[in-house]
């Protein structure tokens, strides 16, 4: 069985949530193996990351080099190619950095590449069995992957549940010297923060969120009305922003904001993983959608199959009655 590595993504000295999920993914390949974490970066933040990873990983390879201080997958790839032994399996979170890094990494390692893995079902001979989603998550596919020369596997964030194992008390191995000179024809310049809108949806406890199912811009008023009745804020999924119906600052998802509300009411949102990736903290998730087959119903706590354009106004009216009379009376129905 090849060795398994987990490339850990981190930000401001804190490892990404996926750092705790990759050991679980590794166990779906080889139950007996604990992966080695690889962390790249520079400075005190990197040391902090390594320190916090000691709880989940038995071994952490630290690659501290100044060029790695800023995100640049080209440089990280060079570093990994020089330290990862041939034939290894490398796990990478399937997010913005992972899509930048992994395809090229697989070529340079002469390894197989499977992106966006949601499950794995062990190894048979030289074939690793993995599960992916296609067509926006509506159809799943079993794929087999030849790992005889190694593999790079991009793991979908949230797909593997982090195990609360005992503290691994791992050791940090400094591999910085082994990566040689790092240079790239791509240079990081800066990161431009997203403009924050009038409302900070990351701080709202209750979100009424609209997706493509809202149909058109004017209909957003229906969701706004319910949100107003509930004292909530309105957020949305990517298609709504792409259509320029709402400001980017209201977008929940991997390319938008990460929110941690108590209650999340998804209206006409199909529930792509990119959207759900922005939903953290296990909120009470209500899904309202016309299509019972929408993937959102798989992850929601409560589902309502109805036309949001009719349901939301009725709901808003009822909420107003409720709050107006202190929730004491009930309408007969």
């Amino acid at each position: 069985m090849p060795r398994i590595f987990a490339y850990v993504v981190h930000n401001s000295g804190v490892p990404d949530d996926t750092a705790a999920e990759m050991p679980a993914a590794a166990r779906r390949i080889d139950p007996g193996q604990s992966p080695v974490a690889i962390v790249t970066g520079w400075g005190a933040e990197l040391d902090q990351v390594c320190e916090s990873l000691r709880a989940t990983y038995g071994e952490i390879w630290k690659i501290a080099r100044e060029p790695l201080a800023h995100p640049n997958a080209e440089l990280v790839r060079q570093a990994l190619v020089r330290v990862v032994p041939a034939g290894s399996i490398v796990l990478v979170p399937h997010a913005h950095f992972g899509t930048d890094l992994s395809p090229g990494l697989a070529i340079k390692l002469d390894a197989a590449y499977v992106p966006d893995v949601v499950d794995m079902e062990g190894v048979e001979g030289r074939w690793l069995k993995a599960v992916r989603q296609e067509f926006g998550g509506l159809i799943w596919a079993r794929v087999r992957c030849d790992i005889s020369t190694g593999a790079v596997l991009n793991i979908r964030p949230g797909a593997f549940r982090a195990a609360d194992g005992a503290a691994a008390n791992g050791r940090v191995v400094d591999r910085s010297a082994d990566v040689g000179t790092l240079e790239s024809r791509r240079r990081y310049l800066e990161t431009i923060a997203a403009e924050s809108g009038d409302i900070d949806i990351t701080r709202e406890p209750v979100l009424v969120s609209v997706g493509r199912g809202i149909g058109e811009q004017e209909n957003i008023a229906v969701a706004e009305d319910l949100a107003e009745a509930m004292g909530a804020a309105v957020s949305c999924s990517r298609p709504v922003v792409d259509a320029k119906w709402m400001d980017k600052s209201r977008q929940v998802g991997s390319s938008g904001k990460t929110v941690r509300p108590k209650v999340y009411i998804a209206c006409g949102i199909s529930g792509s993983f990119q959207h759900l990736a922005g939903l953290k903290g296990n909120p009470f998730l209500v899904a309202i959608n016309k299509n019972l087959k929408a993937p959102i119903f798989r992850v929601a706590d409560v589902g309502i199959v109805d036309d949001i354009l009719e349901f939301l106004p009725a709901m808003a009216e009822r909420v107003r009655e409720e709050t107006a009379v202190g929730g004491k009376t009930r309408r007969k129905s």
Partner: protein
Amino acid sequence: MGSIAQATYWTIHGSSLVLALHLLGLTLFGYIAARRLGPLLAARRDPRLDRPWQRLGRVAQYWLGQWRHPRFRFAGALHILIFAGFLILAGRAFKLLALGVSDRFAGEGGGWYGAVHAYAATAVLLAMIAAAARRLVLRPARYPRSADAIFLLGLIALLMAADGVFEGSEGAFEHRAMALASLPWLVGAVFAHASLPVLRGLHTGAYFVHEGAFIGLLCYRPFGIQFHVETSLFSIYFSKLDRGTVKPVRWDIPDEHLDSADGFGVKRFEDFTWKHILDFYSCADCGRCADFCPAHAVGRPLAPRTLTIKARDYVFRRYPVFQSAQDGQALVGGLFTEDEIWSCTTCGACEAECPLLIEYIDKIVDLRRGLVDDGRAPQSLHKPLKALESRGNPFGKLERKRGEWARDVVTNGSRPLETLYFADSISSYDERMQAIARAAARILARLQQDFGILGAQERDSGHDVRRFGEETLFQALREHNTEAIRASGARRIVTADPHAFNALRHDYRDLPPVEHISQVLARAVEQGKIRFRPAGEAVYTYHDPCYLGRHNGLYEEPRRVLDAIPGLRRVEMARARDRSFCCGGGGLALFYEPKEKERMAVRRVRMAAEAGANVMVTACPFCMANIEDAIKVAGMEGRMEAIDLAELAERQMEPEAKVPEPEITQAKVVGS
């Protein structure tokens, strides 16, 4: 009184001076007119010489008869007054011009013609003062640009005043009785005891002021809204005779050979047809079109008159009379904005209002064709257009599911059809609108019509594909449907969708006759084949769909059906029939995302409420979609309801002893 022609002015003989002035004025005018003619000659072909009698009839009705002017009471009355005055005074003006050249034309003053013209001139003068006062004091929102108009009103007033003084001073000299209370009478009264030199001075002075004002008017008109005095006769004679149609991409290239056209639509100014440029000249900027434009009313960036006036100013800059051409501005994206061009629902309210029969829809469609050809279709239309191309409907639904709406009212069979029911896309696929198609089918069944549908063989009629400028796609859809309809053997076509109705009737060629379900119903009611149960308490109002009413003249049939329902209370909205207010448009308009302050249908629903109605009856699935949405948006659920005429009729139909099971034949289509 002395002769103008015989007098000598600074050593120049009068007739020579006047003749020289005339020639100078006419030459100048001729030059200006020729320059204005230039763009028309550079423009696209547009054959308008057919049906001369019908065209002369239009001239009689709309030009001489001023048919559309009374639609606006005050401005209309004023215009009719001025127009009549002008007609009366035209002869007089030429006589005045002539008598400056030779005394032979002097003739006798006074008489009945003298009185008529004296009153006409006075009336026109007063009308000028009233019109100027209206623009300067009342300032109707319709007239933002008044300087040009005031100057012209002034010139005309001057012309009239000069005429009055000329006539009055002569009258005073001759002690002739003049038309009581007319301008010449007033002048005559004031100068009754003036000395001869004063009167002669007045007389001569008035003549030359008249001459100057006349030449001034003649030569200034082609620079502004008064150009319509010269062009309106031609605009109306050459006006579009076939309503409901859209002009072909190119008059000089048949549809089959359009692939050889170098480009579609209007991209540069000369891509307009000569008649469309003549329209730009003819527009008097009266603003009636914009007043009734629903897009303008809800704050979309479109006003038909502005479109025309901008184009007129553009052509004046591009083909100036004196300077050299100086406008290279792009048409759409420069002169017009893209939003402006896409804002139109092609409802036709502007064309119904324009006193000069100026065309708007064809120009808008031509501009859209240019945009589409350059890849500049609005982003929100890309998906529906692509779906129309690949699936034959804008929703991207499967072809084989197209006939499923009829499943519960269908028995299969195959034989040549008597009647074909054409559902079109929205009634085939949209759950709500399927109810309209089913109601229409049940009505046909009740009337024991042998009818069927094309089902999976039907494609979108392409009505609004064409009007949104995607001509090639439209023609592909038309070709497919035409073949399928012919193969079905149907001898007539019925539809409940006015857009499909208009397309099959006007955009398609060589099809069996097409009827809208309201015509079928109206006839059945008339022949006593359908009786209705009494209606309940509700107050109904009928909303005229644009493509049933304005574009096809079907105003009465739906109303007759409604009025045949016993006890049905029906009110009219303030804007009804040819002044109906568009619901927001059908077909691709459902997918277009306009910049607007309010939805048209919300306005329309409020109009229905103002009329005291609580049920809006329409006869178009797109109206239904827009109106039902608007009822929700306006928060009027429970207070306002929308129903299609076919649904209402089917609901109210008196049950027969035995209702025959509706039978819809799935038309067998050959060669598909």
